């Protein structure tokens, strides 16, 4: 081909391509306009607007009349296939948990503060004097194969998880506090002396220590069908077909078929103990986060397990779904490295000489950043300024009234001046108390579009009060690297930005206790020890007292600032208009259960 031809051809192609692009744009504009007209009031809420979690309902509004039966399509949003360890006693990843919760469930229900109630498949009777709890499973609770769920099944779950050959990650403090558990775990005893089966449906557990934490999600409440697993060696259970291919549970739906890693179909369990489910079945499939919006728009899935909140502002007015939302069990925070972890002793050793050891420096850094604006600008209000280390997801324990430092650069400057961090050489950057150069190394994780600009914002905000903060290695750290280095107390790291999802139990000792490996700041103080101890004391069985203790603890953290919380987060879930009786992740305490889910028409509603 001659050059001349090539040139012509090229310009022709360019023209064709441009034409395509232009028409594509036009199409989109036209569509956007139409949609805008359809719901003019909502349409304005696009892009730059700020949303608030208060505007979201936890429970989907029911529209129209429900039909009988129907199949719900559930999208499991994940860029990895689910692993297929389909048993509560063995799973490790969240995708598997999402699959399991359709066909199996906890024997115990909890209320909105994650304390146990008697509304579940089993009831509990607590004897604090004797340090025992007696559990009674309801008579109509059966496995999918018709066998009753018995006390032995529950005991069996404890025996499997405590077994020396167990290959999962669930053996923890819920287990070690049971009488005789350690002996069984180390292989010295053949049975757990503290667990006693009284009759077919009744089990009694005796504890060595008895704390209020135990009663808020400190009990392992998932039974295992002993009649199915009893002949399988514990080490082989997690890879057995009984877990991977034809798992059974006691939940509202039964597993019908599994395509490994991509989809699961469920049919209803007519004999579900709460009542027969409304739906005929559920189809679960894995949806890549890149295409979740399209899959929702064309009705391929009715709802998803999680929705990327950064895609929400652009899709807030999707016409065929309703977004429901709730406060996430999590917070983002800035942590200050204040010591080292002593692995031998299993406790933290605070270092009074640490670069960040001055509490006024930490408080000034808190005053220097505007987290309210961060929430609005970076997250459209779907994350918002945090004040304490117990997020509002525990409504009775989160203390709203605590006054935490807020954005106030003048105050920050004042604090730094008073503390002796002054700019001695006149370059606009403060030196440390001895007049030496002060550079604070900041570690932050990569991931998502906002990670980089957010880290840059914090650095600029701190520079505005004269503190020189540099990104560790000049770049963001990948998740695994980040936690490897934070965990190892890398001396290069002075401060870091992390996030915690908090446990169901409000007790923060696992994150901030002296003996907690997750206490990454390595902060410890006597007062902190005392309050954390008090929170799990005998007196704290009184709820008001416990709330008071944790209020004091939240106050202490605001005074001492080993970390400061930056933002709380929202979970947003889109639900197709045809779905009825859905509550965000069927959150405990709301009183809506999966078996009540219903549809108003056979086909999903699609976006116009």
């Amino acid at each position: 081909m001659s050059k001349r031809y090539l040139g012509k051809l090229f310009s022709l192609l360019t023209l064709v391509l441009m034409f395509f692009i232009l028409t594509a744009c036009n199409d989109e504009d036209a569509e956007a306009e139409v949609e805008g007209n359809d719901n003019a009031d909502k349409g304005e809420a696009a892009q730059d607007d700020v949303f608030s979690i208060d505007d979201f309902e936890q429970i989907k509004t029911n529209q129209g009349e429900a039909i009988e039966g129907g199949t719900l399509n559930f999208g499991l949003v994940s860029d990895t296939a689910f692993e297929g360890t389909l048993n509560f006693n063995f799973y490790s990843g969240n995708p598997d948990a999402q699959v399991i919760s359709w066909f199996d469930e906890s024997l115990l229900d909890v209320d909105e503060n994650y304390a146990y109630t008697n509304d579940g498949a089993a009831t509990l009777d607590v004897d604090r004097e004797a340090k025992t709890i007696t559990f009674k499973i309801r008579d109509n609770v059966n496995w999918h194969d018709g066998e009753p769920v018995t006390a032995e099944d529950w005991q069996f779950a404890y025996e499997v998880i405590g077994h020396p050959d167990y290959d999962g990650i669930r053996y923890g403090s819920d287990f070690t506090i049971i009488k005789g558990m350690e002996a069984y775990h180390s292989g010295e005893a053949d049975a757990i002396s503290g667990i006693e089966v009284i009759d077919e449906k009744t089990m009694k557990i005796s504890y060595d220590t008895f704390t209020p934490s135990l009663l808020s999600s400190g009990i392992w409440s998932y039974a295992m069908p002993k009649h199915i697993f009893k002949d399988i060696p514990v080490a082989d259970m997690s890879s057995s077909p009984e877990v991977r291919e034809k798992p059974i549970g006691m939940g509202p739906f039964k597993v019908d078929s599994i395509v490994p890693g991509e989809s699961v179909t469920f049919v209803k369990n007519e004999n579900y103990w709460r009542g027969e489910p409304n739906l005929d079945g559920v189809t679960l499939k894995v949806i890549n986060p890149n295409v979740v919006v399209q899959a929702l728009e064309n009705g391929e899935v009715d709802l998803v397990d999680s929705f990327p909140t950064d895609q929400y502002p652009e899709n807030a007015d999707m016409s065929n779904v309703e977004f429901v939302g709730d406060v996430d069990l999590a917070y983002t925070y800035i942590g200050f490295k204040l010591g080292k972890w002593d692995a031998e002793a299993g406790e933290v050793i605070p270092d009074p000489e640490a670069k960040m050891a001055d509490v006024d420096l930490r408080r000034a850094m808190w005053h220097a950043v505007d987290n309210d604006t961060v929430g609005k600008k970076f997250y459209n209000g779907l994350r918002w300024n945090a004040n304490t280390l117990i997020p509002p997801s525990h409504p009775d324990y989160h203390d709203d009234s605590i006054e935490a430092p807020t954005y106030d650069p003048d105050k920050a400057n004042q604090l730094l001046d008073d503390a002796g961090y002054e700019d001695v050489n006149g370059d606009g950057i403060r030196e440390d108390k001895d007049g030496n150069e002060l550079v604070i190394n900041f570690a932050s994780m990569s991931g998502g579009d906002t990670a980089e600009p957010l880290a840059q914002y914090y650095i600029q905000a701190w520079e505005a009060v004269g503190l020189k903060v540099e990104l560790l290695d000049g770049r963001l750290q990948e998740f695994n690297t980040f936690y490897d280095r934070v965990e190892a107390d890398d001396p290069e790291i002075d401060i870091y930005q992390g996030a915690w999802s908090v446990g169901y139990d409000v007790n923060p000792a696992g994150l901030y206790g002296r003996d907690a490996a997750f206490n990454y700041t390595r902060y410890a103080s006597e007062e902190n020890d005392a309050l954390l101890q008090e929170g799990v004391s005998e007196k704290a069985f009184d709820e008001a007292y416990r709330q008071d203790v944790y209020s004091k603890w939240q106050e202490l953290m605001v005074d001492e600032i080993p970390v400061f919380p930056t933002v709380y987060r929202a979970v947003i879930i889109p639900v197709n208009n045809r779905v009825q009786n859905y509550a965000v992740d069927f959150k405990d305490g709301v009183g809506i259960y999966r078996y009540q889910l219903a549809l108003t028409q056979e086909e999903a509603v699609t976006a116009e």
Partner: protein
Amino acid sequence: MPQVLLLSVLVFLMAQMMPGDALSGQIDPNIDPAAIEAQREKLGLNNPWYVQYVDWVGSALHGDLGQSFRHKMPVTDLIGQRLANTFWLAVATLILTYLIAIPLGITSGRYNDTLRDQLITGYTYIGFATPLFIFALVSLWVFGFKLEWFPTGGSVAPGLEPGTFPYIVSKLQHLLLPALSMALITTVNTVQYLRSEIIDTKQKDFIITARAKGAPESRVYNRHILRNSLLPLAAFLGFEITGLIGGTIFVETIYSYPGMGLLFMDSIALRDYSVVTSVVLLLGVVSILGVLLSDIILSIVDPRIRIK
């Protein structure tokens, strides 16, 4: 064999150098850190790399690639599950590649420097310039979501009985779009190659002879030129297979198609070392075999490079 050994050491070392391990994602206050440490110890993740390597090679020689940390099942079973999907995807892509390449290449070569040829070469240039992952995303959007001609993810519709007719149809349907989007891009090499080969061949002396003998034009093209041009093409089959491996990683991720490519990406993300090393090793072996296959075919069709 020495290549495979070298590959295994490299892969193993690189996997070890990845920060974190299969359990480091489990930073969750609901889980006891001691339980995680106990599992680490049990899985041998705390041993030095050479101990782990020797363990791994030792059992790999017995056909045991170890246990996946995350999937809690033997790696061989896991790969077995996924390999079938990728195999069919690769076969479908290869068939489509040649179905597209051969007619286009012939037309383009036979009528070179006409409008037809320019259109086809135009397409190949666009093909060269378009990154596969972008093209796959765009075709997913257009054909999957806008036109709804094809399913948008997975390898089969949920709830079908394996082995039944609807199951096979559904498999094919799920296969077609990923295979097609990959074929449309990878085929451009073959089109170009075939084109230049035909242009080259048609000026050879024996073609002039054939024409001089009065053979009809169709016979000249179908018998003499095409045959001679296709032979070297066959030799590139092996390289084509190597290229497919790279392609499947993108395509499977975009279409959530659970094959080896997706497994590879997942295991890296989850730090599932035993799976990463096994998959890379397997893909490496396939690549080496692919090149070997090319050499063998080449030596069969071209007597000049036969090793005596």
